């Protein structure tokens, strides 16, 4: 196992320059995107006010000082203060909104995996038959769909026409459970608050299905391909020869072995999950990071936008790092 440890250390060390490059890119893009001061103040700002904002943002220093100042602050976990309204620390803004996005991401992720693996397995076991064609088509179409479109269709169907589910928000009015983790479903369970639980789940269904369906297509195709490949292998023939039931052959032996590439894809999909969350949140007025980002872009809240992008970027790097490590742990042949 020593080699695994070395691998992990090496992998973590490699992540550091990666993060550095990433932060530099964020920094540069935010500077290229236009003069933040005029963006913040708009029209007829008096000179003293412009100077004050410049001072506050450190924009009166040479760019290289600005860059190291920014990196230095980041290392101390300081993302600065929002430029608007209460001028709250950006870190607080993020912590207020992140649980909502996490809850949405987890449930969408689970839904996408369940739908994807189920449809992929059915397609693989019905090769070139009707169900196979249907699910292959499903895999391609969902990947090309536009999230707000799926969202609005579901809202129309389940909200307006059937009247079964709420079409926006996270929970009913004044029904929030006592905050422990910030994930409403989990908090409701922990505090045994049944009303909140029902309300939270009801609100969660449409957004997570929207995002889940959008992300499931790739799993459908991946599961189908790899399962089909695995089912051709000798050990499957051996299993069948031993008289195992078809279900045991597919689920116990086939799917398990086809799983590694799917696991990799889960890591890669994570960035897409966050992108999708932004669009889903806006469609469903879900009060998470996506709506925060969207909102603050419209308000030209330069520091908050920068903070959110950095935060998203760090998450993606961390998740990919974890996936690599898990991957290496599961499959001992993998060492780069």
């Amino acid at each position, binding site marked *: 196992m020593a080699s695994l440890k070395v691998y992990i250390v090496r992998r973590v060390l490699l992540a550091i320059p990666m993060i550095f490059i990433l932060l530099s890119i964020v920094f540069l893009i935010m500077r290229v995107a236009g003069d933040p001061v005029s*963006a913040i103040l708009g029209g*007829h700002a008096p000179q003293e006010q412009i100077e004050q904002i410049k001072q506050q943002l450190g924009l009166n220093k040479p760019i290289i000082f600005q860059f190291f100042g920014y990196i230095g602050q980041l290392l101390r976990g300081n993302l600065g203060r929002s430029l608007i309204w*209460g001028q709250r620390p950006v870190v607080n803004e993020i912590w207020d909104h992140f649980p909502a996005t996490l809850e949405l991401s987890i449930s969408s992720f689970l839904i996408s995996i369940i739908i994807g693996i189920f449809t992929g397995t059915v397609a693989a076991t019905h090769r070139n038959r009707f169900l196979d064609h249907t699910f292959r088509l499903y895999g391609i179409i969902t990947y090309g769909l536009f999230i707000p479109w799926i969202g609005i269709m579901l809202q129309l169907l389940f909200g307006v026409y059937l009247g079964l589910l709420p079409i*926006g928000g996270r929970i009913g009015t004044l029904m929030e459970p006592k905050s422990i983790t910030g994930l409403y479903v989990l908090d409701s369970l922990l505090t045994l608050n049944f009303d909140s639980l*029902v309300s939270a789940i009801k609100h969660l269904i449409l957004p997570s299905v929207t995002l889940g369906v959008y992300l499931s297509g790739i799993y459908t195709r991946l599961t189908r391909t790899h399962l089909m490949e695995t089912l051709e292998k000798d050990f499957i023939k051996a299993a069948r020869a031993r008289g195992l039931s*078809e*279900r045991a052959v597919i689920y116990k032996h086939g799917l398990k072995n086809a799983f590694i590439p799917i696991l990799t894809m889960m890591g890669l999909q994570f960035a897409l999950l966050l992108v999708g969350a932004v669009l889903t949140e806006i469609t469903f007025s879900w009060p998470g990071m996506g709506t925060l980002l969207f909102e603050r872009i419209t308000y030209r809240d330069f520091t908050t936008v920068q903070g959110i992008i950095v935060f998203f970027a760090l998450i993606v790097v961390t998740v990919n790092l974890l996936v690599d490590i898990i991957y290496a742990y599961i499959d001992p042949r993998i060492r780069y």
Partner: protein
Amino acid sequence: MKARRMGIFKVILVILPLVALYLTPATASASTTKPIVLGTTDKITVLDPAKTYDFYTWEVFHNIGEGLLKYKPGTTELMPGIAKSYRVSSDGLEYTFKLREGLKFTDGQPLNAAAVKWSIDRVMRLKLDPSWLVSAFVKKVEVVDNYTVKFVLKKPVSFFPSLVTTTPYIPISSRSYPADKVAEPTVGHYGPYKIKKWVRDVELVLEANPDYYGPQPKSKLFVVKFYKNAATMRLALETGEIDVAWKSLRPIDIKSLKSKGKQKILEVPGPYIRYIICRCNKPPFDDVRLREAVAAAIDRDRICREAYKGTVKPLYSMVPMGMWSHIDAFKQEYGERNLELAKKLLTEAGYSKEKPFEIELWYTPTHYGDLEADVAAIIKESLEETGLIKVTLKSAEWATYAAKFIAAGTMPIFLLGWYPDYIDPDDYTTVFLHSKWSPDMGVFYSNPTMDNLLDKARTEIEIKNRTELYKKVQKLMAKEAPVIPLFQGILTAATQPNIEGVILDPVMLLRYYLIYRK
């Protein structure tokens, strides 16, 4: 194969009752008093009267707070607020307000003359966005006795009573708000409602304030839900998640809701106006005949019909419809549209088919919504219908447009829009037409008669005399056409059929405490 299919059926059989079980308990379990829920795509910017300068947050402050005076719902008439009466000194420089006694902020602090003085001083000291509404007019505030407060003005201002209804004049508690910086406490106000809970950009829950002097709000609980887009808000209205859809549904949604007919649609003229500005101090528009020609040739009706699908109304004065003293001045001067007059004026000014009057018309493509380019195109076409004008459209992004071009006089003729700061004809006229301020707006108009009328109207106390003065202002404006009004926005709210008490008026602030369910 058969075995597996059975398996799937088994799964479905287990899931179905679970789904049914989950769907049956309705959400109503928690609510004995069902709140009224209002949806909006606006947002609370900052919950501090010294800093906030947007209509929506002002609306919230008019429900959780109250000024010395307030508007009678549905009108632009003033009535007593937390002051039960006031007196103006004969020179118009001192306004003395007598406060209601025994009022308390929601944090327990007494609301007395000292609290009013503290709040106003704080606005002036912090010098933030809306502070000019106080500091441009008020010299100082004095506490006369515990329940009497005196405002000493820099100059007589006839619309001072309208000014004190604005949010910077709403008193707040010194226990909850710090003296020297912006803060957003959810207590420390005094109004019909108090804040029960506020989650930024998600919801605001208001609860009737039992200490309010006036009638209690019609609905004990009132919830505002904040939507990110108008499409979702419209769906929420259709599913019954919200009772009132307030600013702003899209024109297309309003149209389709109207045709479905399940919800009530309420519409009144809003105080938002759009207009064209001519730069009057340099050629070509220093020639009044050319300004008149443009004013006569514009096709307002077509802008409202084609670009806005009937969701705005043609406007013939800078003083909006629904406000006292409004007259259709431009209609009286030029008619709805008068191409013949425009041609005549242009010919007089020396232009012909061979040598048309060439102008650059400027607009800004996004600041006033996506339809701006269409508006500009319609104006171009309607001017060119004279056969004697050739228009080149030019555009610049808002930052450049507002910061550089307007006051620098870069643009000879351009489109602009206005939301009022205070509800008074002064706010719609003086800045554009008085020689002291008109350069800031890019008008560069100077006419001593006009200055005189405006100054008089500003200081005159009697509303009857002021009305006459503003009518004269409007007539002179139509004659000289330094600014040419185009259209006025409409305020729209959509409600469930059983909702009553939604009163829209030119003040533009919705009073939640009057809304109830039948």
